[in-house]
């Protein structure tokens, strides 16, 4: 394989996670934090970054150890690796900001059971070389962060009239409080999925013409 082909393949691996195989928009994985912690832009970004951190480091270790992990104990090993990095992330977030730690609450620990992370370890990192696994994990992590950011922005702008705590509308704007409540999470996700699927179909139709 030529260098150009290899670079193209690596680029595709990275980009797939961001859009084509976006874990939230197209695979509907990791819905629990997406719905729960997306009530503000800052919370959404913090959760996205914490998840990406765990995803990249666990994929790295799984890929490095892939030839040493017997199939029979692979799931237990992956969970152990993921739980380790979640604990590391938990301490790191507490050291960076207790406010963020308090806002994300139980959802930091729940990254352990985010099926997107175990999914990438099982489906990709355990079968591919280190570099490719890191690229894949970064792509999926950025895709996840992008999706949760969209949710956070939509909910905070409509539900609180602000973007990252900066007022967007004038003082006369009456916030739709429902949008930052759990019900608003489902509504925002529905709207985003509708838009993303409509856009995807439109571009597919355009490509076949």
């Amino acid at each position: 394989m030529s260098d150009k082909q290899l670079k193209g393949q690596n680029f595709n691996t990275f980009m797939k996670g961001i859009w084509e195989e976006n874990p939230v928009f197209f695979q509907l994985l990791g819905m629990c934090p997406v719905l729960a912690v997306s009530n503000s832009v800052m919370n959404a970004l913090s959760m996205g970054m914490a998840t990406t951190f765990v995803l990249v480091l666990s994929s790295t270790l799984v890929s490095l150890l892939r030839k040493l992990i017997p199939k029979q104990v692979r799931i237990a090993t992956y969970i152990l690796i993921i739980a380790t990095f979640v604990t590391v992330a938990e301490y790191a977030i507490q050291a960076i900001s207790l406010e963020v730690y308090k806002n994300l609450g139980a959802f930091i620990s729940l990254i352990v059971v985010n099926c997107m992370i175990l999914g990438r370890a099982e489906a990709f990192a355990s079968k591919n070389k280190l570099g490719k696994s890191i690229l894949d994990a970064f792509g999926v992590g950025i895709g996840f962060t992008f999706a949760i950011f969209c949710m956070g922005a939509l909910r905070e702008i409509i539900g609180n009239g602000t973007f990252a705590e900066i007022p967007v509308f004038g003082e006369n704007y009456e916030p739709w409080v429902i949008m930052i409540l759990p019900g608003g999470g489902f509504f925002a996700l529905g709207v985003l999925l509708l838009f993303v699927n409509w856009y995807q179909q439109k571009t597919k139709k355009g490509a076949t013409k």
Partner: protein
Amino acid sequence: MSNPQQKSTSTISMLRTLAGVATLSGFLIVFVYEFTFPIIKKNRAEVLKKAIFQVMPAAKSYKKFAEKDGKLVEISEDQEIAEAYYGCYDDTNNLIGFALEASGMGFVDIIKVLYGYSTNKEAVIGNMVLETKETPGLGDKIEKDADFVRNFEELDVKLTEDGSKLQNPIEVVKKGKKTEKWQIDAITGATISSKAIGKILLESTQKRLPVIHKSLDVLGASK
């Protein structure tokens, strides 16, 4: 049908992998913990300091006390004890009350709060949740629900004449049923969490206010 590869994997190999990864995991977690612990400790102290002035708004300074033989003695701020008493002073250096940490089991995990006790009003005048893992959207209303937070603007915790116990124990009632100053209106949909806050405050005030009462003359509190 049996998988030939599965048969060929030895028990030792499986144990070695799991033990190896677990050991690596242990080293990494302990290393990160050791590295971040002093930073987290410093962050917590800053948050606590901010919280003290929030639950005791009239306070301008505070001193840390510990209980010794049933009375309060001043200790240095760095000294770590399980149940510290933060004596709060106004701008004329009069003791106006205490900020007290308390904790107890919530619906999900331990809830840790800091509440302000005014010696003048003999009431809880502020409450702040320091740590909680209650269910987002439900249990976490204990710190976000404005009506619930209002319960702690002046929650009666008067002691009996001999100062040994509360005249009226704090009780949590259904939302809208509060008739007395020592009652807390619960949150609809987060009853367990709101009852947990009531229980935490009741247990803490019953145990600690008599100690404060015994030391007030020595400390020179405003009454």
